[in-house]
Protein backbone atom coordinates (compact mmCIF):
# COMPACT_ATOMS: atom_id res chain seq x y z
CA UNK A 1 0.00 0.00 0.00
CA UNK A 2 1.43 3.42 -0.93
CA UNK A 3 2.43 5.61 1.99
CA UNK A 4 3.39 9.17 2.73
CA UNK A 5 6.93 9.23 4.10
CA UNK A 6 8.59 11.91 6.20
CA UNK A 7 12.17 12.64 7.18
CA UNK A 8 13.66 13.01 9.66
CA UNK A 9 11.58 11.22 12.24
CA UNK A 10 13.01 13.46 14.96
CA UNK A 11 14.73 16.82 14.61
CA UNK A 12 16.32 18.73 17.46
CA UNK A 13 17.27 22.33 16.84
CA UNK A 14 18.17 25.44 18.76
CA UNK A 15 15.88 28.42 18.96
CA UNK A 16 16.43 30.79 16.06
CA UNK A 17 17.73 28.12 13.70
CA UNK A 18 16.14 27.21 10.39
CA UNK A 19 14.72 23.75 9.88
CA UNK A 20 13.42 21.95 6.82
CA UNK A 21 11.03 19.07 7.21
CA UNK A 22 10.73 16.74 4.25
CA UNK A 23 7.87 14.70 2.92
CA UNK A 24 7.35 12.40 -0.04
CA UNK A 25 3.62 12.30 -0.80
CA UNK A 26 1.93 9.37 -2.47
CA UNK A 27 3.01 9.46 -6.10
CA UNK A 28 -0.29 10.12 -7.91
CA UNK A 29 -1.60 12.62 -5.38
CA UNK A 30 -2.02 16.26 -6.26
CA UNK A 31 -3.03 17.96 -2.99
CA UNK A 32 -0.46 18.30 -0.23
CA UNK A 33 -0.82 19.45 3.34
CA UNK A 34 1.07 20.15 6.53
CA UNK A 35 -0.52 19.75 9.93
CA UNK A 36 1.02 19.94 13.36
CA UNK A 37 0.19 18.57 16.78
CA UNK A 38 1.65 20.03 19.94
CA UNK A 39 2.05 17.35 22.60
CA UNK A 40 -1.32 16.58 24.18
CA UNK A 41 -3.21 18.96 21.92
CA UNK A 42 -5.32 18.79 18.77
CA UNK A 43 -4.07 18.24 15.26
CA UNK A 44 -3.96 21.68 13.61
CA UNK A 45 -4.04 22.57 9.94
CA UNK A 46 -1.12 24.65 8.69
CA UNK A 47 -1.25 24.82 4.90
CA UNK A 48 -2.53 23.17 1.76
CA UNK A 49 -0.70 23.17 -1.57
CA UNK A 50 -2.01 22.44 -5.03
CA UNK A 51 -0.69 23.11 -8.52
CA UNK A 52 2.56 24.49 -7.12
CA UNK A 53 0.98 27.12 -4.96
CA UNK A 54 -0.56 27.54 -1.54
CA UNK A 55 -4.33 27.15 -1.72
CA UNK A 56 -5.17 27.61 1.97
CA UNK A 57 -3.26 28.49 5.10
CA UNK A 58 -4.09 28.94 8.74
CA UNK A 59 -3.21 31.75 11.12
CA UNK A 60 -0.38 29.60 12.44
CA UNK A 61 1.30 29.63 9.05
CA UNK A 62 2.93 33.06 9.31
CA UNK A 63 5.95 34.51 7.53
CA UNK A 64 8.28 32.17 9.40
CA UNK A 65 6.84 29.23 7.50
CA UNK A 66 7.17 28.34 3.84
CA UNK A 67 6.45 25.30 1.69
CA UNK A 68 7.98 24.09 -1.50
CA UNK A 69 7.76 21.23 -3.94
CA UNK A 70 11.30 21.45 -5.27
CA UNK A 71 11.51 18.45 -7.55
CA UNK A 72 8.12 16.91 -8.28
CA UNK A 73 8.35 14.29 -5.56
CA UNK A 74 9.38 16.02 -2.33
CA UNK A 75 7.25 18.46 -0.40
CA UNK A 76 9.02 20.53 2.24
CA UNK A 77 8.09 22.73 5.17
CA UNK A 78 10.65 25.33 6.20
CA UNK A 79 10.62 27.19 9.47
CA UNK A 80 13.02 30.10 9.16
CA UNK A 81 13.70 30.99 12.76
CA UNK A 82 12.37 28.40 15.15
CA UNK A 83 10.76 29.28 18.46
CA UNK A 84 10.26 27.11 21.51
CA UNK A 85 6.55 26.98 20.74
CA UNK A 86 7.23 25.40 17.36
CA UNK A 87 8.04 22.15 19.16
CA UNK A 88 5.45 19.68 17.91
CA UNK A 89 4.79 16.72 15.67
CA UNK A 90 4.53 17.86 12.08
CA UNK A 91 2.45 15.70 9.76
CA UNK A 92 2.49 15.80 6.01
CA UNK A 93 -0.58 14.54 4.16
CA UNK A 94 -1.62 14.11 0.55
CA UNK A 95 -4.76 13.41 -1.42
CA UNK A 96 -5.63 12.72 -5.04
CA UNK A 97 -7.64 15.05 -7.24
CA UNK A 98 -10.44 12.54 -7.46
CA UNK A 99 -11.17 8.95 -6.71
CA UNK A 100 -10.22 7.53 -3.34
CA UNK A 101 -11.15 9.56 -0.30
CA UNK A 102 -8.32 11.16 1.52
CA UNK A 103 -6.05 12.63 2.79
CA UNK A 104 -3.43 10.15 3.90
CA UNK A 105 -1.08 11.25 6.63
CA UNK A 106 2.58 10.50 7.06
CA UNK A 107 4.14 9.22 10.29
CA UNK A 108 5.26 12.69 11.34
CA UNK A 109 8.45 14.49 12.27
CA UNK A 110 8.92 15.32 15.92
CA UNK A 111 10.50 18.78 16.11
CA UNK A 112 12.11 19.74 19.38
CA UNK A 113 13.29 23.32 19.75
CA UNK A 114 15.65 23.94 22.66
Amino acid at each position, binding site marked *: EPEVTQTPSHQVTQMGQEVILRCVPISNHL*YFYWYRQILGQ*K*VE*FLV*SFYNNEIS*EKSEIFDDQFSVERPDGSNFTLKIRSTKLEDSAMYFC*ASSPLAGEP*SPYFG*PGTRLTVT
Partner: protein
Amino acid sequence: LAKTTQPISMDSYEGQEVNITCSHNNIATNDYITWYQQFPSQGPRFIIQGYKTKVTNEVASLFIPADRKSSTLSLPRVSLSDTAVYYCLVGDPYGNKLVFGAGTILRVKS
Protein backbone atom coordinates in the same frame (compact mmCIF):
# COMPACT_ATOMS: atom_id res chain seq x y z
CA LEU B 1 -16.32 24.97 8.84
CA ALA B 2 -18.77 22.67 10.62
CA LYS B 3 -17.97 21.93 14.22
CA THR B 4 -18.18 18.38 15.48
CA THR B 5 -18.99 17.05 18.91
CA GLN B 6 -17.92 13.60 20.10
CA PRO B 7 -17.75 11.87 23.48
CA ILE B 8 -14.45 12.50 25.21
CA SER B 9 -13.85 8.83 25.93
CA MET B 10 -15.36 5.37 25.70
CA ASP B 11 -14.45 2.03 27.22
CA SER B 12 -15.12 -1.36 25.67
CA TYR B 13 -14.03 -4.97 25.90
CA GLU B 14 -12.40 -7.14 23.31
CA GLY B 15 -14.85 -8.70 20.88
CA GLN B 16 -17.55 -6.10 21.40
CA GLU B 17 -18.98 -3.79 18.77
CA VAL B 18 -18.23 -0.13 19.43
CA ASN B 19 -20.34 2.73 18.13
CA ILE B 20 -19.01 6.27 18.34
CA THR B 21 -21.48 9.00 17.49
CA CYS B 22 -20.54 12.43 16.25
CA SER B 23 -22.78 15.49 16.02
CA HIS B 24 -22.30 17.99 13.22
CA ASN B 25 -25.40 20.15 13.24
CA ASN B 26 -23.99 22.80 10.90
CA ILE B 27 -22.75 20.47 8.19
CA ALA B 28 -22.79 22.08 4.76
CA THR B 29 -24.39 20.56 1.69
CA ASN B 30 -21.05 19.78 0.09
CA ASP B 31 -19.35 18.45 3.23
CA TYR B 32 -18.28 14.84 3.58
CA ILE B 33 -17.84 13.06 6.90
CA THR B 34 -14.49 11.44 7.52
CA TRP B 35 -13.20 9.42 10.47
CA TYR B 36 -9.58 9.04 11.43
CA GLN B 37 -7.77 6.93 14.00
CA GLN B 38 -4.62 8.08 15.77
CA PHE B 39 -2.20 6.14 17.94
CA PRO B 40 0.26 8.01 20.20
CA SER B 41 3.12 9.65 18.29
CA GLN B 42 1.71 8.56 14.92
CA GLY B 43 -0.10 10.35 12.14
CA PRO B 44 -3.88 10.14 11.82
CA ARG B 45 -4.93 7.10 9.83
CA PHE B 46 -7.92 7.30 7.51
CA ILE B 47 -10.70 4.89 8.49
CA ILE B 48 -13.78 5.71 6.44
CA GLN B 49 -15.59 8.50 4.64
CA GLY B 50 -19.18 9.01 3.59
CA TYR B 51 -21.73 11.54 2.42
CA LYS B 52 -25.05 9.92 3.29
CA THR B 53 -26.70 6.61 4.26
CA LYS B 54 -24.28 3.80 5.04
CA VAL B 55 -20.73 3.09 4.01
CA THR B 56 -18.85 -0.08 4.89
CA ASN B 57 -15.26 -1.12 4.36
CA GLU B 58 -13.03 -3.84 5.72
CA VAL B 59 -12.51 -2.15 9.08
CA ALA B 60 -15.64 -0.13 9.89
CA SER B 61 -19.10 1.04 8.96
CA LEU B 62 -20.35 4.59 8.88
CA PHE B 63 -24.03 5.35 9.39
CA ILE B 64 -25.34 8.75 8.35
CA PRO B 65 -29.03 9.63 8.84
CA ALA B 66 -30.98 11.52 6.22
CA ASP B 67 -30.53 14.92 7.89
CA ARG B 68 -26.73 14.36 8.06
CA LYS B 69 -26.53 16.20 11.37
CA SER B 70 -24.83 13.26 13.00
CA SER B 71 -22.92 10.14 12.09
CA THR B 72 -21.95 6.92 13.82
CA LEU B 73 -18.72 5.03 13.36
CA SER B 74 -19.18 1.34 14.05
CA LEU B 75 -16.18 -0.87 14.81
CA PRO B 76 -17.10 -4.56 14.83
CA ARG B 77 -15.43 -6.89 17.34
CA VAL B 78 -12.77 -4.52 18.66
CA SER B 79 -9.41 -5.77 19.87
CA LEU B 80 -6.83 -4.29 22.24
CA SER B 81 -5.03 -2.79 19.25
CA ASP B 82 -8.07 -0.62 18.50
CA THR B 83 -7.27 1.46 21.57
CA ALA B 84 -6.69 4.90 20.04
CA VAL B 85 -8.16 8.34 19.54
CA TYR B 86 -10.92 8.53 16.92
CA TYR B 87 -11.68 11.78 15.16
CA CYS B 88 -14.80 12.77 13.27
CA LEU B 89 -14.30 15.52 10.72
CA VAL B 90 -16.48 17.25 8.18
CA GLY B 91 -15.28 19.05 5.10
CA ASP B 92 -14.50 18.58 1.43
CA PRO B 93 -13.59 15.03 0.40
CA TYR B 94 -9.99 15.93 -0.40
CA GLY B 95 -9.32 17.02 3.15
CA ASN B 96 -8.57 20.65 2.54
CA LYS B 97 -8.18 22.52 5.81
CA LEU B 98 -9.53 19.72 8.00
CA VAL B 99 -10.48 20.83 11.50
CA PHE B 100 -9.68 18.21 14.10
CA GLY B 101 -11.49 18.28 17.41
CA ALA B 102 -10.33 16.59 20.58
CA GLY B 103 -11.55 13.22 19.35
CA THR B 104 -12.82 10.23 21.31
CA ILE B 105 -10.35 8.19 23.33
CA LEU B 106 -11.40 4.56 22.93
CA ARG B 107 -9.96 2.17 25.50
CA VAL B 108 -10.40 -1.53 24.76
CA LYS B 109 -9.90 -3.82 27.73
CA SER B 110 -9.32 -7.56 27.89
